[in-house]
């Protein structure tokens, strides 16, 4: 067979960020191998050898093929990894517990850089490009959501370096395995939003889920972590079984695996025929799989336990990255129902009901929580409900004035743009909040709200950043969270769901109580003095300040980000 090398390179380039993450996983395992025997000689021989071999490969590709490919970020990253490993060996022998984290951060940063380059190319072009025989779709929407997943990975691997339960002995505590799972989960999530093929959706969703189950259980010896991972796995497998059966029905009756083609088929087939009923069952089963990932009531019951039991970086990843890509794939799936006026209105009303129940349940249950992570777990459920508000308004239906019947549905981009903006703002504020939880828990050794009494005065910078995140999560200006809610509510009102916006407004007021409770506890004067002096973590605090700055920045100048979100929504192709 004749292989066209140039087309291979072109296709590889479209999934460059994910490839970098896969390479990062391999490097993580290799670095771990070097550390196992504490045999420094092997490390000294192998580290340069592997690095030079890889760098030579990077040089070889353009040199032998004559194709102009730009590989300098990868080259730079490999060199940086080599520097990290050897310098750690030379300078901090035996105390180099941050090495796996540093490698993961370098990999994630490279992937982000590549995505940025891809984004610059894609935004402004408009049309979607396909590669890998139509499996991978490169459009602004996909690049934006992949960017969110990749940024989440970057920040959470940074958090992992400072996460106390994994700090003491990285070998014994499985930091390498943890980071590999984190990177693989992020790569799975990125593939998930880059494709519209049912097979690839299933595979990447399973990559995301299986690696998430493993991460949750990585705190060995912790009963809560073990229980949480088992619970997550069982319910998650059932949800993916539902989804898979739904996919099999969709494939069975349409004979297609690509979402747009299934969508065309749905619009042409008689919907009240038995085949139509089975197709509808397939669509509903598929959505139940996504609803599980999104913690929508009634598929939410795993969330509080898992968020509490998991290592905090994982909790942050699940509540931000995993949720962002799941929303992404759900929006892509809704795409195929556009123009289908037989079932889409019913689905929209179902989604509206789910939004109301989800946000109300999340907020009411969060009111009386004593554990910080559990509280943020419920708050995350509530936020999924707010985001669903934007999804509800995705379609607008025209009523025929003569008969009062629905005439045609049309896509309403405002809702999509609002959800995407919300996901971005949520990334900043929720990652920040979990980072602050890690910072405070390192000082107190506990994650109870009672125990952070007065800590805001002890570390004023982090305390101040935490307040910014809480304000943003509540939705108070001038923070990104305010505009996120504002856009979503406005989309709901414009889309004819005024009552939904009112319910969401009431929910925002409820959420004020528990967010305010954390802030009050943080700056309560009579702080207990019974916490240990943990090693200072100025670099963790620096990232928190950066996230807080971002939250404020997008709270004051939301326009540009909003434009980006709108363009991404348009790129879905209507």
């Amino acid at each position, binding site marked *: 067979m004749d292989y066209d090398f140039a087309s291979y390179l072109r296709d590889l380039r479209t999934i460059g960020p994910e490839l970098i993450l896969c390479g990062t996983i391999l490097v993580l395992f290799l670095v771990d191998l070097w550390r196992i025997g504490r045999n420094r000689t092997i490390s000294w021989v192998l580290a340069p050898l592997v690095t030079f071999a890889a760098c030579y490969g990077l040089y070889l590709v353009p040199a032998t093929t004559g194709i102009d490919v730009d590989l300098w970020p990868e080259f730079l990253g490999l060199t940086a990894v080599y520097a990290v490993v050897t310098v750690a060996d030379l300078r901090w022998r035996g105390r180099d517990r941050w090495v796996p984290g540093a490698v993961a951060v370098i990999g994630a940063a490279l992937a982000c850089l590549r995505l940025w380059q891809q984004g610059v190319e894609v935004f402004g072009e408009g049309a979607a490009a396909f590669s890998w025989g139509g499996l991978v779709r490169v459009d602004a929407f996909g690049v934006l959501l992949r960017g969110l997943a990749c940024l989440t990975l970057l920040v959470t691997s940074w958090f992992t370096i400072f996460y106390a339960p994994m700090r003491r002995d990285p070998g014994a505590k499985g930091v390498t395995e943890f980071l590999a799972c984190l990177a693989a989960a992020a790569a799975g999530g990125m593939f998930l939003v880059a494709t519209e093929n049912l097979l690839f959706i299933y595979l990447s969703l399973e990559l995301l889920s299986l690696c998430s189950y493993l991460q949750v259980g990585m705190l060995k010896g912790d009963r809560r972590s073990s229980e949480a991972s088992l619970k997550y*796995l069982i319910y998650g497998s059932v949800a993916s079984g*539902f989804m898979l059966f739904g996919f099999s029905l969709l494939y*069975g009756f349409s004979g297609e695996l690509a979402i747009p083609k299934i969508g065309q088929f749905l619009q042409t087939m008689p919907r009240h025929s038995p085949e139509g009923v089975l197709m509808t069952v397939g669509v509903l089963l598929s959505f139940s799989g996504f609803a599980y990932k999104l913690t929508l009531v009634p598929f939410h019951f795993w969330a509080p336990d898992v968020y509490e039991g998991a290592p905090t970086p994982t909790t942050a990843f699940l509540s931000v990255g995993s949720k962002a890509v799941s929303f992404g794939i759900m929006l892509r799936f809704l795409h195929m129902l556009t123009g289908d006026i037989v079932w889409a209105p019913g689905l929209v009303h179902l989604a509206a009901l789910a939004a109301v129940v989800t946000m109300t349940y999340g907020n009411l249950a969060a009111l009386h929580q004593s554990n910080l992570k559990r509280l943020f777990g419920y708050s995350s459920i509530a936020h999924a409900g707010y985001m669903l508000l934007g999804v509800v308004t995705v379609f607008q239906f025209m009523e025929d004035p003569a008969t009062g019947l629905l005439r045609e549905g049309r896509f309403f981009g405002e809702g999509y743009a609002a959800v995407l903006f919300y996901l971005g703002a949520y990334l900043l504020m929720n990652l920040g909040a979990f980072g602050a939880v890690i910072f405070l828990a390192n000082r107190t050794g506990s994650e109870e709200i009672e125990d952070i009494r007065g800590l805001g005065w002890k570390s004023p910078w982090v305390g101040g950043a935490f307040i910014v995140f809480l304000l943003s999560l509540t939705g108070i200006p001038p923070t990104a969270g305010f505009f996120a809610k504002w856009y979503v509510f406005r989309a709901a009102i414009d889309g004819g769901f005024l009552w939904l916006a009112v319910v969401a407004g009431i929910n925002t007021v409820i959420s004020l109580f528990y967010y305010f409770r954390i802030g009050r506890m943080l700056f309560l004067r009579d702080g207990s003095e019974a916490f240990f002096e943990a090693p200072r973590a100025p670099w963790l605090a620096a990232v928190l300040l950066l996230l807080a700055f971002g939250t404020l920045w997008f709270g004051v100048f939301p326009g540009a980000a909003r434009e980006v979100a709108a363009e991404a929504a348009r790129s879905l192709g209507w």
Partner: protein
Amino acid sequence: MIASILAVLPAAEGIPNPSIPTSWVLLLAALLFILGIYGFLVRRDLIVVFMSIELMLNAANLTFLAAARERMLDPEGQVYAIFVITVAAVEAAVGLALLIAWFRLRATLDVETAVELEG
């Protein structure tokens, strides 16, 4: 009765074993799927719950292959089924690892706490 159903559902020519209607296979797949859900809802023994999940995945595979046969052995459905088998095997391995870790922790809870105090 069987003959009457067969008469209603003529199978396409040229596919393997055309005398077996695809809808029968779909029905059996649905039955397996429902059995899986039933097991998940009723049983509390975790290993049996895992087995119910396997039944659900097999139901999906059966649907894929039945649909692929109806389209002259479409390779897409077969490829999908192979991926599902792969993922199911990984899922079983991960599930049992978590299960073993959990049972070990439950059995030796007091010993574990002692270790934690030591380190």
